[in-house]
């Protein structure tokens, strides 16, 4: 599969300014985004379940250039959403799609093995073995997959110019994330409040969640950091952290594709995707809408209809 991808990239590179894909990271458990500009760099490209990053994050920043981007099914939804919102141009990008069987949540791996002492990783069909100085640990892929991958409805890129292998059938209807949401919905409002206070208290406002987000295109001009007007005080309290996180979520309502980069990027382990999964579920129920799955669809909160079929008007 990787040979097919490399071959396609090598061929297309002539027409493109660069191709963003995955390469080996600083240790055997980390992959990293690589920016390929020369044919001799193409062999740096890899593919395995450690290729977690959503590379669509770089597209808005690189607009104006001809960019090839390697995407998984979930990442392709971000590309489509950026296109639907007119934030990037179709003719400027070339999409190398990878039908995906799921990627690894390193936080889950860290519960089983000291991930910063792993010296070697070897792959089996549905498992992998991590070697440290203290011995070997074998882990089944299923037990360490990211929650978004369980029941993934879009394992094959929804938009692509090239597919590196045969399409993968949908695995469900997003059960992994829906379970996370229903767990929280079962809590009373007071319990939910306590849950989020405890989680959000850890936020250090480093904005990794925002900067890793492919749809957060305001970046340097984000309201959270604006100094004039100074919307959110810099106090180190839950209140301000909460304010920031809600601002983030609400600005993504109808735009978030649930890729989970916010949560993966968070050094404090805050379950940020849960908030988004909840909003996305509400949007689906209310507007029968999912971000980044159909071409040419406008997010419901970026448009207006006199009467919405599922919103009951108040009788004045």
């Amino acid at each position, binding site marked *: 599969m990787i040979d097919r991808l490399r071959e396609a990239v090598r061929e297309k590179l002539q027409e493109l300014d660069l191709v963003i894909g995955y390469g080996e*990271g*600083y*240790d055997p458990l*980390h*992959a*990293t*985004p*690589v*920016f390929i500009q020369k044919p001799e760099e193409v062999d740096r490209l890899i593919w395995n379940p450690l290729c977690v*990053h959503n590379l669509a*994050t*770089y597209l808005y920043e690189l607009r104006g250039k001809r960019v090839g981007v390697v995407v998984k099914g979930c990442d392709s939804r971000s590309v489509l959403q950026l296109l639907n919102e007119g934030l990037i141009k179709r003719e400027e990008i070339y999409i190398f799609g990878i039908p995906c069987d799921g990627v690894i949540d390193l*936080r889950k791996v*860290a*519960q089983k093995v*000291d991930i*910063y*002492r*792993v*010296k070697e990783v070897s792959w089996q069909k549905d498992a992998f073995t991590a070697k440290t100085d203290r011995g070997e640990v074998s882990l089944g892929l299923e037990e360490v997959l990211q929650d978004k991958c369980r029941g993934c409805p879009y394992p094959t890129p929804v938009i692509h110019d090239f597919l590196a292998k045969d399409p993968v059938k949908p695995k469900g209807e997003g059960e992994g994330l829906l379970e996370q949401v229903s767990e929280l919905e079962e809590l009373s409002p007071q319990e939910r409040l306590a849950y989020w206070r405890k*989680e959000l208290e*850890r936020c*250090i*406002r*480093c*904005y*990794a969640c*925002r*900067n*890793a987000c492919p749809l957060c295109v305001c*970046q*340097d*001009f984000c309201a959270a*950091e*604006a*100094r004039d007007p*100074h919307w959110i*005080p*810099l*106090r*180190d309290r839950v209140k301000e952290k909460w304010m920031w996180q809600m601002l983030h979520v609400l600005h993504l309502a109808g735009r978030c594709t649930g890729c989970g*980069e916010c949560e*993966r*990027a968070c*050094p*404090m*382990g805050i379950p940020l995707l849960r908030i988004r999964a909840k909003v996305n579920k509400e949007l689906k129920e209310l507007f029968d809408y999912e971000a980044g799955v159909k071409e040419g669809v406008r997010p419901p909160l970026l448009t207006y209809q006199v009467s919405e079929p599922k919103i009951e008007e108040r009788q004045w």
Partner: protein
Amino acid sequence: MKDGVKFLEEGALEGLLRRLSERARVWVPVEATPGVVLWRPWREGEKVRLDRQGTEPPKHVLFPRSETLLRIYEKEELKIEEVMPQGPSVIFGARPCDVRGFEVFDQVFGEEDPYYSVRRRETTILTVLCTEPERTCFCTTVGGGPLEEKGSDVTLLWIEGGWLAQAVTERGEEVLRDEAFVEASREQIEKGEQRKEAVKLDPVVDLSGIPEKFLESFTSDFWRRVTAKCISCGACTFLCPTCYCFNITDERTPEGAERLRSWDACMFYHYTLEASGHNPRPTKAERYRNRIGHKFSYHPSNYGTYGCTGCGRCIKYCPVGMDVREILRELKEYAEG
């Protein structure tokens, strides 16, 4: 090992922390959520994680994420009240790289910064020496070491069943007078020596000439190339034991206002945005270049030591796997090639 080596049995830890807490605010590393170890004031029953490097360094104990410098009351008459740090602290379970971060702070804030220096004077540091460096550790590359005791008041070395404890300062000797510390046996001391000898961490890159090489690279496209994947968030700076940049803001309170000093990061656009609207570091390339330049060129030129302690957190917690070691290697090659 010198005379007066004590032994702290694992089971005696809780009692020690309880007694220390009677006199000071005792900061300990705890697993706040699976896999995330953060510094919290010790509480009864808290499980202390001394077996791994914390996700964050204890820098906020001496340099809070946000602190009130003064309060302004404007109800009847205008009143300004200075707010100074109160009370002694203990940092229990720092790592040598964390402690070196405070050395960098001392160089910068020194005695002139009243808020910092009050806290610094009143903080006792007990450090757990590292016997098993992680793969992202590179303290020996920047002049530190896993067994470095400088800057600590007490060092703790894990051997079976507990820690060998040694005082580094007078204040440390005071701590070791607590009943939890008993005389270490000859066997325990020997075991400690063996553990120390087994620790190995080779430098990963030769930094000689780096401060000058950095300056040569300043205007080149090197920085644009190596920062292509950087997403310009503040995870590296906020988790760095030596990053000390701050912002000062006046924020509203019900009674009037307060002046805050809060962490800022050179990775952010607003950090260098000037009142005119001009920004000398408009993209991530200039911003990341500043981060490396500050730690490996400007700081050594100004103070004679690197502004990096090699803790490796900027590598571990970078969402896209930026690796400062790799960039220093490439910088060397670039300047030489």
